[in-house]
Protein backbone atom coordinates (compact mmCIF):
# COMPACT_ATOMS: atom_id res chain seq x y z
CA UNK A 1 0.00 0.00 0.00
CA UNK A 2 1.73 3.13 -1.29
CA UNK A 3 4.80 2.53 0.84
CA UNK A 4 6.69 5.02 -1.30
CA UNK A 5 5.46 8.32 0.14
CA UNK A 6 6.47 7.93 3.74
CA UNK A 7 10.15 7.84 2.92
CA UNK A 8 10.17 10.44 0.16
CA UNK A 9 11.98 12.88 2.43
CA UNK A 10 14.00 10.45 4.56
CA UNK A 11 17.40 8.97 3.73
CA UNK A 12 18.04 5.74 5.58
CA UNK A 13 21.58 6.00 6.92
CA UNK A 14 23.38 5.60 10.24
CA UNK A 15 25.35 8.83 10.41
CA UNK A 16 26.19 11.00 13.41
CA UNK A 17 23.58 13.49 12.15
CA UNK A 18 20.92 10.77 12.05
CA UNK A 19 21.78 9.72 15.59
CA UNK A 20 21.37 13.18 17.14
CA UNK A 21 18.25 13.42 19.33
CA UNK A 22 15.46 15.02 17.28
CA UNK A 23 14.84 18.00 19.55
CA UNK A 24 18.55 18.87 19.52
CA UNK A 25 18.48 18.86 15.72
CA UNK A 26 15.33 20.99 15.70
CA UNK A 27 16.89 23.62 17.95
CA UNK A 28 20.09 23.64 15.89
CA UNK A 29 18.16 23.92 12.62
CA UNK A 30 15.95 26.74 13.83
CA UNK A 31 18.94 28.64 15.28
CA UNK A 32 20.81 28.26 11.99
CA UNK A 33 17.85 29.56 9.96
CA UNK A 34 17.33 32.53 12.29
CA UNK A 35 21.04 33.44 12.10
CA UNK A 36 20.95 33.24 8.31
CA UNK A 37 17.82 35.37 8.21
CA UNK A 38 19.42 38.22 10.19
CA UNK A 39 22.68 38.16 8.23
CA UNK A 40 23.00 41.42 6.18
CA UNK A 41 22.33 40.78 2.51
CA UNK A 42 25.53 42.46 1.32
CA UNK A 43 27.64 39.84 3.15
CA UNK A 44 27.57 37.40 0.25
CA UNK A 45 30.70 35.68 1.57
CA UNK A 46 28.80 34.92 4.81
CA UNK A 47 26.12 33.08 2.86
CA UNK A 48 28.85 31.21 1.00
CA UNK A 49 30.35 30.05 4.31
CA UNK A 50 26.86 29.06 5.57
CA UNK A 51 26.30 27.06 2.37
CA UNK A 52 29.61 25.26 2.76
CA UNK A 53 28.71 24.45 6.38
CA UNK A 54 25.35 23.00 5.30
CA UNK A 55 26.93 20.96 2.54
CA UNK A 56 29.39 19.57 5.07
CA UNK A 57 26.45 18.47 7.22
CA UNK A 58 24.92 16.80 4.15
CA UNK A 59 28.22 15.05 3.51
CA UNK A 60 28.51 13.80 7.10
CA UNK A 61 24.87 12.64 6.94
CA UNK A 62 25.56 10.85 3.62
CA UNK A 63 22.73 12.73 1.92
CA UNK A 64 23.54 13.12 -1.77
CA UNK A 65 23.54 16.58 -3.37
CA UNK A 66 21.17 15.41 -6.07
CA UNK A 67 18.65 14.37 -3.39
CA UNK A 68 18.79 17.87 -1.88
CA UNK A 69 18.76 19.67 -5.25
CA UNK A 70 15.63 17.87 -6.49
CA UNK A 71 13.73 18.68 -3.29
CA UNK A 72 14.95 22.28 -3.37
CA UNK A 73 12.76 22.80 -6.43
CA UNK A 74 9.86 23.14 -4.00
CA UNK A 75 10.99 26.72 -3.22
CA UNK A 76 10.80 27.80 -6.86
CA UNK A 77 7.15 28.96 -6.80
CA UNK A 78 7.80 30.85 -3.58
CA UNK A 79 10.82 32.76 -4.88
CA UNK A 80 9.50 33.26 -8.44
CA UNK A 81 8.27 36.74 -7.62
CA UNK A 82 11.81 37.64 -6.49
CA UNK A 83 12.90 37.60 -10.12
CA UNK A 84 10.52 40.48 -10.81
CA UNK A 85 12.17 42.73 -8.22
CA UNK A 86 15.10 43.93 -10.41
CA UNK A 87 12.57 45.12 -12.99
CA UNK A 88 10.13 46.85 -10.67
CA UNK A 89 12.58 48.18 -8.05
CA UNK A 90 13.37 51.88 -7.98
CA UNK A 91 16.57 53.85 -7.35
CA UNK A 92 19.91 53.51 -9.10
CA UNK A 93 20.11 51.11 -12.03
CA UNK A 94 22.87 48.94 -13.39
CA UNK A 95 23.23 47.71 -16.93
CA UNK A 96 23.00 43.91 -17.20
CA UNK A 97 23.15 42.59 -20.76
CA UNK A 98 21.49 45.71 -22.11
CA UNK A 99 18.76 45.81 -19.48
CA UNK A 100 18.63 48.63 -16.95
CA UNK A 101 17.97 46.77 -13.70
CA UNK A 102 17.32 48.28 -10.30
CA UNK A 103 20.33 47.86 -8.05
CA UNK A 104 18.09 47.78 -5.00
CA UNK A 105 15.90 45.17 -6.72
CA UNK A 106 18.90 42.98 -7.52
CA UNK A 107 20.00 42.99 -3.90
CA UNK A 108 16.48 42.20 -2.73
CA UNK A 109 16.31 39.29 -5.18
CA UNK A 110 19.69 37.94 -4.10
CA UNK A 111 18.68 38.26 -0.46
CA UNK A 112 15.50 36.21 -0.97
CA UNK A 113 17.27 33.58 -3.06
CA UNK A 114 20.16 33.09 -0.61
CA UNK A 115 18.01 32.91 2.49
CA UNK A 116 15.24 30.79 0.95
CA UNK A 117 17.74 28.29 -0.43
CA UNK A 118 19.68 27.99 2.84
CA UNK A 119 16.45 27.71 4.87
CA UNK A 120 14.89 25.09 2.61
CA UNK A 121 18.13 23.09 2.51
CA UNK A 122 18.19 23.08 6.31
CA UNK A 123 14.69 21.65 6.52
CA UNK A 124 15.44 19.12 3.78
CA UNK A 125 18.48 17.90 5.73
CA UNK A 126 16.45 17.80 8.95
CA UNK A 127 13.77 15.67 7.27
CA UNK A 128 16.37 13.53 5.50
CA UNK A 129 18.02 12.58 8.78
CA UNK A 130 14.98 12.38 11.08
CA UNK A 131 11.98 10.10 10.57
CA UNK A 132 8.64 11.88 11.02
CA UNK A 133 7.66 10.07 14.24
CA UNK A 134 11.00 11.12 15.77
CA UNK A 135 10.53 14.65 14.51
CA UNK A 136 7.16 14.76 16.29
CA UNK A 137 8.87 13.46 19.43
CA UNK A 138 11.36 16.30 19.08
CA UNK A 139 8.54 18.84 19.00
CA UNK A 140 6.97 17.18 22.05
CA UNK A 141 10.24 17.38 23.89
CA UNK A 142 10.40 21.09 23.08
CA UNK A 143 7.00 21.46 24.79
CA UNK A 144 4.96 21.89 21.62
CA UNK A 145 1.28 21.39 22.62
CA UNK A 146 0.61 17.63 22.83
CA UNK A 147 -2.71 18.13 21.03
CA UNK A 148 -0.93 19.46 17.93
CA UNK A 149 1.68 16.70 17.83
CA UNK A 150 -1.08 14.11 18.35
CA UNK A 151 -3.09 15.56 15.43
CA UNK A 152 0.03 15.46 13.25
CA UNK A 153 0.71 11.88 14.33
CA UNK A 154 -2.85 10.76 13.49
CA UNK A 155 -2.64 12.52 10.14
CA UNK A 156 0.60 10.71 9.41
CA UNK A 157 -0.93 7.38 10.45
CA UNK A 158 -4.24 7.69 8.61
CA UNK A 159 -3.30 9.60 5.48
CA UNK A 160 -2.62 6.40 3.57
CA UNK A 161 -5.64 4.63 5.05
CA UNK A 162 -7.93 7.43 3.85
CA UNK A 163 -6.27 7.79 0.43
CA UNK A 164 -6.56 4.01 0.10
CA UNK A 165 -10.30 4.29 0.73
CA UNK A 166 -10.57 7.10 -1.80
CA UNK A 167 -8.70 5.02 -4.36
CA UNK A 168 -11.05 2.08 -3.86
CA UNK A 169 -14.10 4.32 -4.22
CA UNK A 170 -12.74 5.73 -7.47
CA UNK A 171 -11.99 2.24 -8.72
CA UNK A 172 -15.56 1.23 -7.88
CA UNK A 173 -16.87 4.25 -9.81
CA UNK A 174 -14.65 3.53 -12.80
CA UNK A 175 -15.75 -0.11 -12.72
CA UNK A 176 -19.31 1.11 -13.26
CA UNK A 177 -18.36 3.28 -16.17
CA UNK A 178 -17.77 6.65 -14.48
CA UNK A 179 -15.15 8.53 -16.47
CA UNK A 180 -15.30 12.19 -15.48
CA UNK A 181 -14.04 14.63 -18.09
CA UNK A 182 -16.25 17.67 -17.74
CA UNK A 183 -17.25 19.91 -14.89
CA UNK A 184 -20.92 18.83 -14.99
CA UNK A 185 -19.79 15.26 -14.23
CA UNK A 186 -18.52 16.38 -10.86
CA UNK A 187 -21.52 15.20 -8.85
CA UNK A 188 -20.28 11.65 -8.09
CA UNK A 189 -16.96 13.12 -6.95
CA UNK A 190 -18.75 15.45 -4.54
CA UNK A 191 -20.86 12.53 -3.30
CA UNK A 192 -17.76 10.40 -2.77
CA UNK A 193 -16.11 13.21 -0.84
CA UNK A 194 -19.14 13.19 1.46
CA UNK A 195 -19.02 9.41 1.80
CA UNK A 196 -15.29 9.60 2.54
CA UNK A 197 -15.95 12.15 5.25
CA UNK A 198 -18.60 9.93 6.88
CA UNK A 199 -16.32 6.90 6.69
CA UNK A 200 -13.42 8.81 8.20
CA UNK A 201 -15.67 10.13 10.95
CA UNK A 202 -16.84 6.62 11.77
CA UNK A 203 -13.26 5.38 11.75
CA UNK A 204 -12.45 8.19 14.16
CA UNK A 205 -15.11 6.86 16.53
CA UNK A 206 -13.74 3.31 16.28
CA UNK A 207 -10.18 4.51 16.86
CA UNK A 208 -11.38 6.47 19.87
CA UNK A 209 -13.04 3.31 21.24
CA UNK A 210 -9.77 1.43 20.68
CA UNK A 211 -7.90 4.16 22.56
CA UNK A 212 -10.37 4.04 25.46
CA UNK A 213 -10.04 0.25 25.56
CA UNK A 214 -6.35 0.70 26.27
CA UNK A 215 -6.81 3.17 29.07
CA UNK A 216 -6.78 6.51 27.21
CA UNK A 217 -7.93 9.26 29.56
CA UNK A 218 -7.69 12.33 27.35
CA UNK A 219 -3.97 13.07 27.17
CA UNK A 220 -1.44 11.26 25.01
CA UNK A 221 1.13 9.57 27.24
CA UNK A 222 4.79 10.48 26.87
CA UNK A 223 6.49 7.39 25.47
CA UNK A 224 10.08 8.39 24.90
CA UNK A 225 12.97 9.98 26.68
CA UNK A 226 15.83 10.23 24.22
CA UNK A 227 19.06 10.26 26.17
CA UNK A 228 20.79 13.56 25.55
CA UNK A 229 24.43 14.26 26.31
CA UNK A 230 26.52 17.42 26.29
CA UNK A 231 28.31 15.95 23.29
CA UNK A 232 25.02 15.89 21.36
CA UNK A 233 24.41 19.56 22.07
CA UNK A 234 28.03 20.46 21.30
CA UNK A 235 27.95 18.57 17.99
CA UNK A 236 24.65 20.11 16.98
CA UNK A 237 25.82 23.60 17.99
CA UNK A 238 28.59 23.68 15.36
CA UNK A 239 26.30 24.53 12.46
CA UNK A 240 24.29 27.37 14.07
CA UNK A 241 27.50 28.75 15.65
CA UNK A 242 29.04 29.21 12.22
CA UNK A 243 25.93 31.03 11.00
CA UNK A 244 25.82 33.26 14.10
CA UNK A 245 29.51 34.07 13.64
CA UNK A 246 28.90 34.94 9.99
CA UNK A 247 25.89 37.10 10.87
CA UNK A 248 27.90 39.03 13.46
CA UNK A 249 30.87 39.38 11.11
CA UNK A 250 28.53 40.56 8.38
CA UNK A 251 27.20 43.37 10.55
CA UNK A 252 30.67 44.32 11.85
CA UNK A 253 32.40 44.69 8.48
CA UNK A 254 29.42 46.34 6.90
Amino acid at each position, binding site marked *: *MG*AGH*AHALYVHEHSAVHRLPPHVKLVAGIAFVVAVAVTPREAVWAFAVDAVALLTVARVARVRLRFVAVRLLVVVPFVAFAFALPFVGGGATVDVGGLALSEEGLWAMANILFKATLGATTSILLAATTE*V*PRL*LRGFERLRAPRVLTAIA*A*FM*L*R*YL*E*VVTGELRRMRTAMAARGHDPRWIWQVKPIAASAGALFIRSYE*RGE*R*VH*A*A*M*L*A*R*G*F*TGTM*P*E*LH*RDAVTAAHWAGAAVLPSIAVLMAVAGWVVR
Partner: protein
Amino acid sequence: MSTPVIAVDGLRFTYPDGTEALAGVDLHIHAGERVAVLGPNGAGKTTMALHLNGIHRSATGSITVSGLALADDTLAEIRRRIGFVFQDPDDQLFMPTVHDDVAFGPANLGLRGDELEERVTDALRAVGTEALADRAPHHLSGGERRRIAIATVLAMHPDLLVLDEPTSNLDPAGRRELIELLAGLDVTQLVITHDLGFVLELCERVIVMNDGRIVADGPTRSILADEPLLRANRLEPPPGL
Protein backbone atom coordinates in the same frame (compact mmCIF):
# COMPACT_ATOMS: atom_id res chain seq x y z
CA MET B 1 -15.75 -22.86 41.88
CA SER B 2 -13.11 -20.16 41.46
CA THR B 3 -13.96 -16.50 40.79
CA PRO B 4 -14.86 -16.25 37.10
CA VAL B 5 -12.74 -14.01 34.88
CA ILE B 6 -15.98 -12.65 33.48
CA ALA B 7 -19.38 -12.70 35.10
CA VAL B 8 -22.17 -11.01 33.12
CA ASP B 9 -25.63 -11.05 34.62
CA GLY B 10 -28.87 -9.78 33.11
CA LEU B 11 -27.16 -7.41 30.68
CA ARG B 12 -29.57 -5.41 28.51
CA PHE B 13 -28.74 -2.66 26.05
CA THR B 14 -30.82 -0.53 23.73
CA TYR B 15 -29.21 1.76 21.16
CA PRO B 16 -30.28 5.43 21.26
CA ASP B 17 -32.44 4.84 18.16
CA GLY B 18 -34.51 2.29 20.12
CA THR B 19 -33.01 -0.89 18.66
CA GLU B 20 -32.69 -3.50 21.37
CA ALA B 21 -29.19 -4.97 20.92
CA LEU B 22 -28.94 -7.06 24.11
CA ALA B 23 -32.03 -8.60 25.64
CA GLY B 24 -30.68 -10.07 28.86
CA VAL B 25 -27.28 -11.74 28.57
CA ASP B 26 -25.84 -14.03 31.27
CA LEU B 27 -22.31 -15.31 30.76
CA HIS B 28 -19.59 -16.73 32.99
CA ILE B 29 -16.09 -17.49 31.74
CA HIS B 30 -13.43 -19.07 33.93
CA ALA B 31 -9.65 -18.75 33.85
CA GLY B 32 -7.96 -20.73 31.10
CA GLU B 33 -11.09 -21.16 28.95
CA ARG B 34 -11.08 -20.36 25.26
CA VAL B 35 -14.65 -19.53 24.29
CA ALA B 36 -16.06 -18.79 20.83
CA VAL B 37 -19.04 -16.50 20.30
CA LEU B 38 -20.99 -17.41 17.17
CA GLY B 39 -24.08 -15.95 15.63
CA PRO B 40 -25.40 -14.10 12.60
CA ASN B 41 -24.47 -10.51 11.83
CA GLY B 42 -26.42 -8.17 14.06
CA ALA B 43 -26.88 -10.77 16.81
CA GLY B 44 -25.24 -8.48 19.38
CA LYS B 45 -21.87 -10.24 19.65
CA THR B 46 -19.66 -7.14 19.30
CA THR B 47 -22.10 -5.03 21.33
CA MET B 48 -21.90 -7.55 24.16
CA ALA B 49 -18.10 -7.63 23.97
CA LEU B 50 -17.85 -3.82 24.03
CA HIS B 51 -19.74 -3.88 27.33
CA LEU B 52 -17.12 -6.08 28.97
CA ASN B 53 -14.61 -3.21 29.14
CA GLY B 54 -17.15 -0.43 29.52
CA ILE B 55 -16.92 1.09 26.03
CA HIS B 56 -20.69 0.64 25.98
CA ARG B 57 -22.39 1.19 29.31
CA SER B 58 -25.74 -0.20 30.27
CA ALA B 59 -27.93 0.67 33.22
CA THR B 60 -29.38 -2.84 33.37
CA GLY B 61 -27.31 -5.81 34.42
CA SER B 62 -23.94 -6.27 36.04
CA ILE B 63 -20.45 -7.05 34.80
CA THR B 64 -17.68 -8.35 37.05
CA VAL B 65 -14.11 -8.95 35.90
CA SER B 66 -12.05 -11.23 38.15
CA GLY B 67 -14.23 -10.22 41.08
CA LEU B 68 -14.13 -6.47 40.34
CA ALA B 69 -17.50 -4.93 39.47
CA LEU B 70 -17.57 -2.53 36.51
CA ALA B 71 -18.27 1.00 37.73
CA ASP B 72 -16.97 4.51 37.04
CA ASP B 73 -14.17 4.24 39.56
CA THR B 74 -13.05 0.77 38.42
CA LEU B 75 -13.15 1.53 34.69
CA ALA B 76 -9.40 2.01 34.29
CA GLU B 77 -8.55 -1.26 36.03
CA ILE B 78 -11.31 -3.14 34.15
CA ARG B 79 -9.87 -1.89 30.86
CA ARG B 80 -6.46 -3.18 31.87
CA ARG B 81 -7.94 -6.59 32.70
CA ILE B 82 -9.84 -6.88 29.41
CA GLY B 83 -7.64 -6.78 26.32
CA PHE B 84 -9.85 -5.96 23.37
CA VAL B 85 -8.52 -6.68 19.87
CA PHE B 86 -10.69 -4.83 17.37
CA GLN B 87 -11.73 -6.32 14.06
CA ASP B 88 -9.86 -3.83 11.87
CA PRO B 89 -6.17 -3.46 12.83
CA ASP B 90 -6.26 0.00 11.23
CA ASP B 91 -8.60 1.01 14.07
CA GLN B 92 -6.48 -0.68 16.71
CA LEU B 93 -3.08 0.58 15.56
CA PHE B 94 -3.26 4.36 15.62
CA MET B 95 0.25 5.43 16.56
CA PRO B 96 2.99 6.29 14.02
CA THR B 97 5.18 3.30 14.91
CA VAL B 98 4.63 -0.26 16.13
CA HIS B 99 6.70 0.43 19.25
CA ASP B 100 4.64 3.47 20.22
CA ASP B 101 1.41 1.61 19.64
CA VAL B 102 2.40 -1.25 21.93
CA ALA B 103 3.66 1.26 24.50
CA PHE B 104 0.39 3.25 24.46
CA GLY B 105 -1.56 0.94 26.81
CA PRO B 106 1.11 0.36 29.46
CA ALA B 107 2.03 4.08 29.35
CA ASN B 108 -1.60 4.89 30.15
CA LEU B 109 -1.19 2.59 33.16
CA GLY B 110 1.60 4.90 34.28
CA LEU B 111 4.63 2.83 33.27
CA ARG B 112 7.69 4.74 32.07
CA GLY B 113 11.31 4.16 31.16
CA ASP B 114 12.83 0.68 31.36
CA GLU B 115 9.67 -0.89 32.76
CA LEU B 116 7.71 0.39 29.76
CA GLU B 117 10.37 -0.80 27.29
CA GLU B 118 10.33 -4.23 28.91
CA ARG B 119 6.56 -4.51 28.45
CA VAL B 120 6.87 -3.50 24.79
CA THR B 121 9.71 -5.92 24.06
CA ASP B 122 7.98 -8.81 25.86
CA ALA B 123 4.68 -8.24 24.07
CA LEU B 124 6.31 -7.99 20.65
CA ARG B 125 8.32 -11.11 21.38
CA ALA B 126 5.16 -12.99 22.45
CA VAL B 127 3.69 -12.46 18.98
CA GLY B 128 7.03 -12.89 17.18
CA THR B 129 7.38 -9.36 15.78
CA GLU B 130 10.33 -7.85 17.70
CA ALA B 131 11.97 -6.87 14.41
CA LEU B 132 9.05 -4.62 13.43
CA ALA B 133 9.22 -2.24 16.42
CA ASP B 134 10.28 0.85 14.44
CA ARG B 135 8.05 0.24 11.42
CA ALA B 136 4.90 2.17 10.58
CA PRO B 137 1.72 0.05 10.88
CA HIS B 138 0.55 0.91 7.35
CA HIS B 139 3.65 -0.68 5.88
CA LEU B 140 2.94 -4.11 7.36
CA SER B 141 1.06 -7.12 6.03
CA GLY B 142 -2.41 -8.01 7.32
CA GLY B 143 -1.06 -10.88 9.38
CA GLU B 144 1.67 -8.76 10.93
CA ARG B 145 -0.83 -6.04 11.80
CA ARG B 146 -3.14 -8.57 13.44
CA ARG B 147 -0.31 -9.97 15.57
CA ILE B 148 0.79 -6.48 16.60
CA ALA B 149 -2.81 -5.58 17.47
CA ILE B 150 -2.69 -8.56 19.86
CA ALA B 151 0.67 -7.38 21.24
CA THR B 152 -0.82 -3.95 22.03
CA VAL B 153 -3.20 -5.55 24.52
CA LEU B 154 -0.83 -8.27 25.78
CA ALA B 155 1.44 -5.41 26.91
CA MET B 156 -1.25 -4.50 29.45
CA HIS B 157 -1.14 -8.02 31.00
CA PRO B 158 -4.88 -8.65 30.59
CA ASP B 159 -6.89 -11.35 32.38
CA LEU B 160 -9.06 -11.89 29.32
CA LEU B 161 -8.30 -11.44 25.64
CA VAL B 162 -11.37 -10.49 23.56
CA LEU B 163 -10.86 -10.90 19.83
CA ASP B 164 -13.40 -9.59 17.30
CA GLU B 165 -13.24 -11.68 14.11
CA PRO B 166 -9.48 -12.22 14.29
CA THR B 167 -9.26 -14.32 11.12
CA SER B 168 -11.11 -11.88 8.83
CA ASN B 169 -9.05 -10.62 5.88
CA LEU B 170 -6.17 -13.02 6.57
CA ASP B 171 -4.70 -15.30 3.91
CA PRO B 172 -4.57 -19.02 4.80
CA ALA B 173 -0.95 -18.83 5.99
CA GLY B 174 -1.68 -15.73 8.09
CA ARG B 175 -4.73 -17.49 9.56
CA ARG B 176 -2.63 -20.56 10.38
CA GLU B 177 0.02 -18.41 12.11
CA LEU B 178 -2.68 -16.64 14.09
CA ILE B 179 -4.19 -19.96 15.25
CA GLU B 180 -0.78 -21.14 16.40
CA LEU B 181 -0.15 -17.84 18.16
CA LEU B 182 -3.47 -17.91 20.04
CA ALA B 183 -3.05 -21.60 20.90
CA GLY B 184 0.30 -20.76 22.50
CA LEU B 185 -0.88 -17.79 24.58
CA ASP B 186 -1.44 -18.48 28.24
CA VAL B 187 -4.45 -16.21 28.70
CA THR B 188 -8.23 -16.71 28.83
CA GLN B 189 -9.77 -15.91 25.44
CA LEU B 190 -13.18 -14.89 24.12
CA VAL B 191 -13.31 -15.00 20.33
CA ILE B 192 -16.10 -13.55 18.19
CA THR B 193 -15.93 -15.26 14.82
CA HIS B 194 -17.66 -16.71 11.76
CA ASP B 195 -14.71 -19.06 11.13
CA LEU B 196 -16.01 -22.44 12.32
CA GLY B 197 -12.84 -24.31 11.38
CA PHE B 198 -10.96 -21.97 13.67
CA VAL B 199 -13.49 -22.62 16.46
CA LEU B 200 -13.23 -26.37 16.06
CA GLU B 201 -9.47 -26.25 16.29
CA LEU B 202 -9.05 -23.75 19.09
CA CYS B 203 -12.09 -23.43 21.34
CA GLU B 204 -13.48 -25.99 23.72
CA ARG B 205 -16.66 -24.05 24.41
CA VAL B 206 -19.10 -22.25 22.12
CA ILE B 207 -21.74 -19.63 22.78
CA VAL B 208 -24.35 -18.95 20.12
CA MET B 209 -26.01 -15.53 20.13
CA ASN B 210 -29.06 -14.36 18.22
CA ASP B 211 -31.34 -11.36 18.65
CA GLY B 212 -29.39 -10.10 21.63
CA ARG B 213 -29.64 -13.35 23.58
CA ILE B 214 -27.45 -16.35 24.24
CA VAL B 215 -29.38 -19.19 22.60
CA ALA B 216 -26.86 -21.97 23.18
CA ASP B 217 -23.81 -22.52 25.37
CA GLY B 218 -21.88 -25.79 25.47
CA PRO B 219 -18.94 -27.91 24.34
CA THR B 220 -17.80 -27.07 20.81
CA ARG B 221 -18.28 -30.53 19.32
CA SER B 222 -21.83 -30.99 20.52
CA ILE B 223 -22.92 -27.50 19.43
CA LEU B 224 -21.27 -27.72 16.02
CA ALA B 225 -22.89 -31.14 15.51
CA ASP B 226 -26.37 -29.77 16.25
CA GLU B 227 -27.42 -29.01 12.71
CA PRO B 228 -30.96 -27.69 13.44
CA LEU B 229 -29.53 -25.28 16.02
CA LEU B 230 -26.89 -24.07 13.58
CA ARG B 231 -29.36 -23.60 10.72
CA ALA B 232 -31.78 -21.72 12.98
CA ASN B 233 -29.00 -19.24 13.69
CA ARG B 234 -27.70 -18.72 10.16
CA LEU B 235 -24.70 -20.99 10.78
CA GLU B 236 -23.66 -24.22 9.16
CA PRO B 237 -21.69 -27.24 10.35
CA PRO B 238 -18.00 -26.97 9.48
CA PRO B 239 -16.74 -29.41 6.86
CA GLY B 240 -15.03 -32.48 8.29
CA LEU B 241 -16.86 -32.61 11.61
